[in-house]
Structures are given as structure tokens and as C-alpha cells.
């Protein structure tokens, strides 16, 4: 690996370099002229590098507004990037290619959304919802074959082929999320981008969906990019984890390393805030401050206003991601050795 981002070892399936996405949220031109206001740009994603190996689950965590969902949308091509490249299995997604070649690439990646109530068309029967990708990519040889495939997909997500005749409103939230997963699997993808797939679900249903996702990954060798704000879920499902803060990746590490030996002060803070069932009655150290507005991010390291270890250098110089302990960390305090890495222990329930 020359200067690429660190991975779990295997060949990189997804490679993201210097990815940026800025949104223009300025007031209309005339208002700006009258009130003398400048343009306003939100740097939702501000230069991140990610590499995902085939068959692994890479998770992005962070608080709302940190840009994790924007990364998901950039990766599947719902937004064009402002700068940077996304390579999927060696293919640059931004390169010019014919419609059919693009469709062939697109077929191999699918997305599962957070809200199972908004992501299914209420006027379509479940059969048609799941058959749509098969039809769109011309993957079936006829009506009988299509019915057989949809039936199989429904069975895979523990529904029955008879459910295909129903409408989405006849299902509970968990069942709808299963339908979303069946639809995502319909085009036989290799890579699934899951944007908070269980946040809208109750915990017992969340457990069903997470188990299902693990089963499917094992059976089809799927690669997941998993977006979540729930650290316990991320701990359970991921191979490696990236922590985002204000559009930047502050730390990337294999899951066990990240939770046992968190390095970046923000990661430590996030881990401190997990309400853990085992620590009944424990006092959490609440962290002062809130995420600053991405419209006006702090200079230097964007975490410095909330960071107890910040010094003058942190206020002016943006830290680069440096390799450490099998992952990368962007923090001056860690780089200079001002901040020691501590081992954390958790208790099994």
C-alpha cells in the first residue's frame, strides 16, 4: 500500500480520497445584495479518506450534522462530490462511461435508508417494490422467473411470498425495514450502504434486523458501509470504525482497538457518553459544549473549543491523519505525545 488509507489488510474494495462536499446555503442573490451578506457554504464533508476491504463492515459514527449521511449519499452517487475521488472495485465512479457500463456498476451497490415509512412507495405493492430493481437492471428472464426471485428475496428476509401482494402500510416498522433490505438485495449487489438502518426501530426489532444483516453478509460476502450514531450497535456489527466530527474523520481504527484504546479526545468523549447498562448508577462525565455550526467551523482542529487538551497549535493548524495502532488519528496532542493512550475495560453483562 503506497500512501493509501489503512485497511483491514485485504485489497481495497472501496477507496475514497480527499472526498469533499460543500453545500451552498446562501440567501437569495438579491437579499445578499441588500443586506450585504456574503455567500454561505456548509462544508458538510471536508476532505476524508476511507478504504473498505471486501467483505468487511466499515462504520461511520458521529453526532447529527457531522456529515456521515452525506458521505453515504456521496458514495452511492446521490450527490456528486465537490472534490475528491470514489473508487469502487478499481473503477473511478466519476469517470465518463456509457449508460450500460454505469448501470452495471450501479447494480453492484445499493442503499438502505433510515426511515422505513418514507423509503417505500405507499402506492406500490411489496412485490412491485422488490421487483423494481430486477426489472430496471433487466435481471429476469420472464414473469415466472421474476415471481420466483421476489419470492426467494422475501423468504430471505423472513417474510413470505404471499406478503408480496400487500401494501407497505400493512407492515410494522421492522417488517418494512426487511422489505427495504429485500429490495436492496434484489439487484444482487456486493456493497450495501446502510444509513441508520435500525435507528427508527425498537430494540428487540433492531436485534432481529442486525442479526439478519450479519446472516446475509455471511451468505453473500457483502461489504457494508454502516452509518449510525449508536455506538453499541456499531461495536456489535463493525470490523472497523471511523469517527466523524464536523465533516472530518478524526479517528479510524479496528473496532476492538477503537473501543479499548480510543485515542482522539472526541472519540473518548463519545465513549464516555454511552449510557451503559452495566454501569448502573455510575456518573457519566458530561462533556461541555455542543457541536459548532458547520457554517463557521473553528480554525485548526475543529474540535479544539471543546477539547480539554487543546493548545495554541490546535487552534491554528489542522491535524493530519497519522497512522497509529492499526488505525489513523488526526490529533496534535496524540502526535506530540502530550496525551497518553489509556486502556479501557468493559464488563460483560
Amino acid at each position, binding site marked *: 500500500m503506497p500512501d493509501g488509507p489503512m485497511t483491514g489488510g485485504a485489497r481495497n474494495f472501496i477507496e475514497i480520497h480527499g472526498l469533499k462536499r460543500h453545500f451552498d446555503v446562501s440567501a437569495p442573490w438579491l437579499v445578499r445584495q441588500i443586506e450585504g451578506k456574503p455567500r454561505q457554504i456548509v462544508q458538510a464533508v471536508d476532505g476524508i479518506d476511507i478504504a473498505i476491504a471486501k467483505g468487511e463492515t466499515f462504520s461511520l459514527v458521529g*453526532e*447529527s450534522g457531522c456529515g456521515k449521511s452525506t458521505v453515504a449519499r456521496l458514495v452511492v452517487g446521490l450527490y456528486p462530490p465537490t472534490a475528491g475521488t470514489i473508487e469502487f472495485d478499481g473503477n473511478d465512479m466519476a469517470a465518463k462511461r456509457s449508460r450500460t457500463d454505469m448501470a452495471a456498476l450501479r447494480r453492484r451497490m445499493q442503499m438502505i435508508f433510515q426511515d422505513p415509512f418514507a423509503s417505500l412507495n405507499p402506492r406500490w405493492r411489496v412485490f412491485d417494490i422488490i421487483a423494481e430493481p430486477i426489472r430496471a437492471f433487466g435481471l429476469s428472464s420472464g414473469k415466472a422467473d421474476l415471481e420466483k426471485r421476489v419470492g426467494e428475496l422475501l423468504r430471505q428476509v423472513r417474510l413470505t411470498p404471499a406478503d408480496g401482494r400487500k401494501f407497505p402500510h400493512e407492515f*410494522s*416498522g*421492522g*417488517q418494512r425495514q426487511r422489505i427495504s433490505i429485500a429490495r436492496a438485495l434484489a439487484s444482487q449487489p456486493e456493497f450495501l450502504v446502510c444509513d441508520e438502518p435500525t435507528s427508527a426501530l*425498537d*430494540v*428487540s*426489532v*433492531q*436485534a*432481529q434486523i*442486525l*442479526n439478519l444483516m*450479519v446472516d446475509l453478509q455471511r451468505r453473500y460476502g457483502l461489504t457494508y458501509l454502516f452509518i449510525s*450514531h449508536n*455506538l*453499541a*450497535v456499531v*461495536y*456489535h*456489527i463493525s470490523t472497523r470504525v471511523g469517527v466523524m466530527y464536523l465533516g472530518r474523520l478524526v479517528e479510524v481504527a479496528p*473496532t*476492538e482497538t477503537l*473501543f479499548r484504546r480510543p485515542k482522539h479526545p472526541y472519540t473518548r*468523549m*463519545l465513549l*464516555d*457518553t*454511552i*449510557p*451503559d*447498562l*452495566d*454501569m*448502573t*448508577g*455510575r*456518573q*457519566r462525565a*458530561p*462533556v*461541555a459544549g*455542543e*457541536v459548532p455550526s458547520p457554517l463557521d467551523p473553528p480554525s485548526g482542529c475543529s474540535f479544539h473549543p471543546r477539547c480539554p487538551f487543546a493548545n495554541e497549535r490546535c487552534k491554528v493548524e489542522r491535524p493530519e491523519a497519522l497512522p497509529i495502532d492499526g488505525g489513523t488519528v488526526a490529533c496534535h496532542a496524540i502526535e506530540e505525545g502530550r496525551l497518553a493512550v489509556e486502556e479501557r*475495560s*468493559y*464488563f*460483560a*453483562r
Partner: protein
Amino acid sequence: MAAQSNNPPLLEVKNLRVEFPTRRGTLLAVDDVSFDIAPGEVLGVVGESGAGKSLTGNAIIGLLEPPGRIAGGEVRLEGRRIDNLPYEEMRKVRGARIGAIFQDPLTSLNPLYSVGRQLVETIQTHLSLSARAARARALDLLKEVGIPGAETRIDHYPHQFSGGMRQRVVIALALCAGPRLIVADEPTTALDVSIQAQIIALLKRLCRDHGTAVMLVTHDMGVIAETADRVAVMYAGRLAEIGPVRDVIKHAQHPYTKGLMGSIPSLGVRTDRLTQIDGAMPRLTEIPPGCAFNPRCAFVGKRCLVERPDLMSAGTSRAACWLHANGGVGAPIVKETVDA
């Protein structure tokens, strides 16, 4: 139940039933729920969506959304019945004796008035204070809930606050008249984890300082684990289990609670699979006879299919499960075959 002697409970809920008349018949959303809260105690109420936990909270503060109505049972605050009070009477209790915190801080605040004005209005409604004294109290409250620069922030409008700061204002509003009980319905669900930790710590500190009891309704076991003294687990409108928080989490007595705890991913041990309770909570129209949990229960016996269990003592908790009948003797250990 707590002793009826010299230390009466602050809030007593007895056989509470909440129903919704619909075209297809009456739905029983809260079914025979009884519990009490001691002064200064934090009772967590957990359950999945539709378990009736929010309705129980709303019934207590008299804010059931029509056509929902209390169909039976009683709610007593400091020994006085409050479930049958006329609307105007209840308004005086609400705010003065019981404070309420809801999930979305933006909907609890009026966007057209500055937060100071809303606080002053609430204070003057319940306490006879001059405008100047009320404003001073509002300012003290804002400082107490940790709003930086309270002197200037008091004249700001809700939209000028962030989500976490808004929830602090709502907590200040709930504390205005020094209530004995706060009903907090998912107070941290709309917030980020780091802000959630701040709000929980704040709520705990304030209630300890003021001796206020809290009924904390949430689906987040983590929040309950570190906040509550006791926890009540609801399922399909009924209480499945109630007991000290540590015991319920570590030694759940009801099979549903056990499954619920197992389905929460835990830090420290990476298991291959999470414990999974198959199926979903039944809709209110399709609650099975006997124990509502029987179609999903691994320990279901014949009795569970016909007879509804009441809360019975199980370890240090009380659970509504026939496994604990006769002190656990009548427990069906082996799963019996059930013809669907």
C-alpha cells in the same frame, strides 16, 4: 407495594385503564396498570413503541388526547385523587404539583414568545409573585439549568437556542413552580448522545436538589440504567415487570424483559448474534387471551394461554408471569407444544 404507613407514596396509580373508542370497537391501550412513586424517587418506564408507556404518563398529567380516556382505576397525588378533576382544577395541579417534559423541546415552547416571557407567565400562573420577582426567579432557573449568559439569553426566542439548550429551557419551565413530580416523556430521544448525557446529569442533579420525584418514560434502557431507582417494563398496555433497576437489568424475571435486555448490544463482549425475540408486539386489536406475551414466549405453558397473570413477587422484583406462581414452583420448565 410500598407500605401504607407513615411514608405514603407521592403518586399512586391503581388499576389504571386507558381506552380508545374506535369504529371497530374499543381498544384498551393501558390495561390494569398499578404502581406508585415515592417522594424523590426516579421511576423509569420502558417498553417498545405502542406499549402504552406514554399514554400512562399522559393519563397521569391529564393530557390524554381525545378520544382516549381513562376508563377505570385511579391516580392519586399525595393522597388526593387527580384523575377525575375538572379541567380547570387539573390545570392548577399540572405545572404546580406535576411538571411535564416532552420529547421535542421545540413543540413545548411557543415560538412567538421569548423564553423569559414564557417562564414568567408560568411562574405567575402558579405562584403569586410580582413581575420583577418572577423574572428574577426565571433568571435563577435558567442559570440553574446551565444556560450560559442567562442574562441575555432570557430575552431570546426558542429558535435561537440549540436542541440541547431548548431542552434545558423546557426543564426550567417544568421546575418553575417547584413541583413534587415531573413526568418526563422521552426527554433525551431527540438529542445527540453527548447532549443526552448532559441533560440526564442535569435532570438527576436538579431532582436530587429539589427532592422532586420523576417518572421517566423512555425506550432507552441505557438512560434508565443510569438514572432510575426502579424500573417498570410495559408490554402491550400491561406491566410485565417492576423492580429495582439493577435487578431488572441483571436478573430479569419476566421472559420479555430477559429478551429485551439480551437484544441490546453490549460493549465489552462481541457476540455473534444478539438475543432475538421473534415476532412483534401484538396490535391492540389482536392481543391474545391469557398473557399478552404468550405467542413470543419460549416458556409458554397451558395456563399462559388462558389466564392472565397479575404481578407476583419474583426475586426482588414483581413480574406478571406464571413462571413465578407459587414462588416459582409452578414453572413450566419445558416448552410445551402449542397448536397454533
